């Protein structure tokens, strides 16, 4: 599938090209099957890019509380870190994650979760990114992470 007939299953390179054309980073989440499966998308607010996990029943890890699975929160933080890296710098390929350290701060309830990343250091080959995720208020984070990525 190419051009206008592409419904979002195209390659990452194609999505990156579309993002460079019109500045809409949502092309990237739409090109990532995992992101589509679990409702990851993006928005822009006054502070810039937000990566959003729209609530899906399939992300529940605790049916009693209920709460979103720690794996999904980790995935959201990793996805947000990647998107913020791509958004802030020119990369021609998907940055490859080296490691991530996730702190789980509060149970994440069955509703939308937001994440924002900050590039702390961008070297020639390595980038360090910090990310926080929250639901109701940014100053009440449900999880936070720092991660290293290999560039290029």
């Amino acid at each position, binding site marked *: 599938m190419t051009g206008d007939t592409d419904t979002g299953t195209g390659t990452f390179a194609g999505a990156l090209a579309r993002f460079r054309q019109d500045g809409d980073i949502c092309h990237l989440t739409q090109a990532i099957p*995992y992101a*589509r499966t679990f409702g990851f998308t993006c928005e822009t607010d006054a502070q810039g890019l937000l990566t959003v996990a729209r609530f899906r029943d*399939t992300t529940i890890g605790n*049916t009693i509380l209920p709460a*979103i*699975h720690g*794996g999904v*929160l980790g995935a*959201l933080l990793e996805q947000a870190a990647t998107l913020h890296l791509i958004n802030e710098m020119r990369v021609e390929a998907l940055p490859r994650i080296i490691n991530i350290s996730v702190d789980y701060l509060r*149970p994440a309830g069955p509703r939308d979760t937001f994440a924002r990343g900050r590039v702390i250091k961008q070297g020639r080959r390595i980038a360090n990114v910090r990310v926080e995720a929250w639901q109701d208020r940014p100053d009440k984070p449900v999880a936070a992470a720092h991660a290293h990525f290999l560039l290029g």
Partner: protein
Amino acid sequence: MPDTPPAPRGSAPPSPRGPAPFADIIRVFGTIPHCRALNMAVEDVARGEGTIIAPYDPALVGNPDRGVLHGGVVTALLDTVAGLVVFSVIPEGASTATLDLRIDYLKPATPGLALRARGLVTKLTPSVAFVRGRAFHEDPDDPIAHCTATFMVGSTGFTTSGNGEGGGNGEGGGTA
């Protein structure tokens, strides 16, 4: 996992209640919606260690150019197996929640292959369980990722009995 002790060294005082029967732990994990979404299954569980498996699924790909599974699948498997092995050592009915999880991605998963995660409780204290884990396809000594995780014991979190018993101090946020 030859680089870690074979069994947890519990410094917790002897509890009047032992861990939940392994069959109960496996059954409860089978009811977790996200674990079902990833088609996870418990391969083995013993006191302080265990293995889970998830099949390859194109819907869970994170790099569409290479067909490699999203890091979130590895994270979910490692978090889940870590929670599983914590339940195998804490008293039945006690709750637990992930405090932190640090993952090193050693190499990409191979497209098309099922993913396994194995966890080991390295230390149990009255409040905290320390776990190491690794993700791999067939050979645990050829890992895709390894992790260290800590779990709050007796927090607001997951229980195998599902009655929500536990301290309810609001700390910890992970749920597996």
